[in-house]
């Protein structure tokens, strides 16, 4: 009998190959695990710093800004992205793959470049910034700038996921709905949207997570009001690791908790 302890699905032999592969894979797993656990472990040596960070209004405000901004950007992405996703899933039109390509650009270009491009259009004299400036609204170094920067970076995640969700809805269900007398709008509301909802929700979570972790574009477009990543970076450059780490830990824990809470309804439904 094979002695390979990983051989639990009882495949005969081949143990040495898999042992070698396990060893190689372990290198990567350890790299990630050690990096993260070390951060938490080091902080246990200075718990007071963690507690004081958790009470520091500057820190809490920054985390609040991050959460509020990514929530706003996700809502905007949802409102405009779901119709676009439905369109891309259901209609053929000239230039469709161009549109799909454009939507994916923010994922492909370096984040800093996106920040530079966003700064160019959002600044007071920019194509988008100028009309807002006339209304007395400043986008750069403002909450709205954070939201737009996050929106730009997180859009593709929502649109792509929702589009695949709509694609996986059998088009014949929509046909049947129409033959039962439902208008296109009724069909969308009663059939396509509910059936794609789990994908759309998933896309929202992805967009939300991508938004809250965005740093590069926000750094360039809207240093103020300080969002959490900016504050962590600022503390790091000004006071070093020991001053930024408690905030980083606080931020990542809050992110992961919120992330888990957002996923909860999905996990429930699957059971």
């Amino acid at each position: 009998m094979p002695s390979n302890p990983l051989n639990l699905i009882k495949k005969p032999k081949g143990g040495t190959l898999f042992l070698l592969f396990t060893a190689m894979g372990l290198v990567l797993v350890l790299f990630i695990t050690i990096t993260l656990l070390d951060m938490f472990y080091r902080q246990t040596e200075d718990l007071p710093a963690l507690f004081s960070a958790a009470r520091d209004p500057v820190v809490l405000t920054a985390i609040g800004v991050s959460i509020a901004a990514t929530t706003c950007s996700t809502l905007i992405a949802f409102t405009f992205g779901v119709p676009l996703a439905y369109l891309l899933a259901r209609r053929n039109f000239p230039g469709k793959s161009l549109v799909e390509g454009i939507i994916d650009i923010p994922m492909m270009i370096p984040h800093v470049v996106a920040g530079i491009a966003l700064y160019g259009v959002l600044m007071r004299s920019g194509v988008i910034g100028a009309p807002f400036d006339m209304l007395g609204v400043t986008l750069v170094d403002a909450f709205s700038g954070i939201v737009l920067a996050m929106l730009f970076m997180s859009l593709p995640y929502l649109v792509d996921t929702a589009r695949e969700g709509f694609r996986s809805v059998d088009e014949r269900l929509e046909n049947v709905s129409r033959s039962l007398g439902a208008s296109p709008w009724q069909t969308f509301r009663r059939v396509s949207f509910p059936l794609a909802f789990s994908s759309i929700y998933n896309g929202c979570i992805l967009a939300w997570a991508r938004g809250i972790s965005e740093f590069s574009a926000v750094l360039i477009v809207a240093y103020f009001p300080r969002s959490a990543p900016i504050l962590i970076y600022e503390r790091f450059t000004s006071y070093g690791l020991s001053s930024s780490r408690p905030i980083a830990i606080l931020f990542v824990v809050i992110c992961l908790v919120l992330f888990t809470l957002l996923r909860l309804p999905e996990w429930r439904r699957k059971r």
Partner: protein
Amino acid sequence: MIRIRDLERSWREFRIEDVNLAIDRGEYFVILGPTGSGKTLLLELIAGFYLPDGGKIWIDGVNVTDLAPEERGVGFVYQDYALFPHLTVRENIEFGQRVKKLPEEEIERSALEMMELLGIEDLKDRYPDTLSGGERQKTAIARALILKPDLLLMDEPFSALDLRTKQRMQDELKKIHRESGVTMVHVTHDQTEAMVMADRIGVMMEGRIVQVGGVREVFNKPLNEKIAEFLGVENILEGIISEVDDGLSIIDIGGIEISALTDLEVGSRVNAFLRPEEITISKVSQKTSARNNIEAKIEKIMNLGAVVRIELDSGLVALTSRRSAEELGLDRGAEVYASFKATAVHVLEK
């Protein structure tokens, strides 16, 4: 009920063209054709899920060619029933009335009636993925019928069912057809199913309706070789008419003479079609003027379960029951007589 003129449409790899068809009110019409012949597309065009590239469709005298599906009042049952997976059986059935915003009371009452009619009231709170094939089919039919459509289109409605359920549902569907009087158009690739269900059959091949007629007419008198082959007429014999006597002709098939009924003249080159189950294999000659009798040697016997397929050296293929093959002691190399009625031969000029 339905009139279709010069209908034409391409979609992906499918193409239908030159479709002209008239289906009568209350009829059970089966569109029979091989996979890929465009049957489903034709049904979807009638339902309005796609618009034709050319041609026109009338339903009940109204030109519906440009109408949206929700304006046609046509019921549709897809091959795997396309039930809304997020709705219960009852919600599926109520769907059409709900979008029409009928009074809640009426919706519930008629949904209940419909479920009772089909015997699925016990399933009303179940979701489609917990239903068996037959239950799904009943739900899909109920969902369509509750709106009292004049026309019900069904795409391979039995292909997802096992044999027993299929036989039961065929009876059920015929009953619904008799009692409701709704015009039914049913698409299938299965000859047996078409025979069992149809009032009339339209044979569809390569995007065209190639033959329309009653069941016997279509199966016994296919219009050409391709149709004959699709319908399972395995014996297609080329020959020349050598004699005509009062409607009964003699056809010379490479030296063998067979009698058949035809109005063609002496010297015509013809194809003669003969279904393998029309041939009787026996050990004694049964020749009469109205019955062909060919001496032959068995080249191959293949056991197909209840039926045996016999290939003869003359090229003929016969099907006979395994029992009678055993009783006759048929075997490879045996000398036998293959006999068949003159009326069983269907002659077509080449």
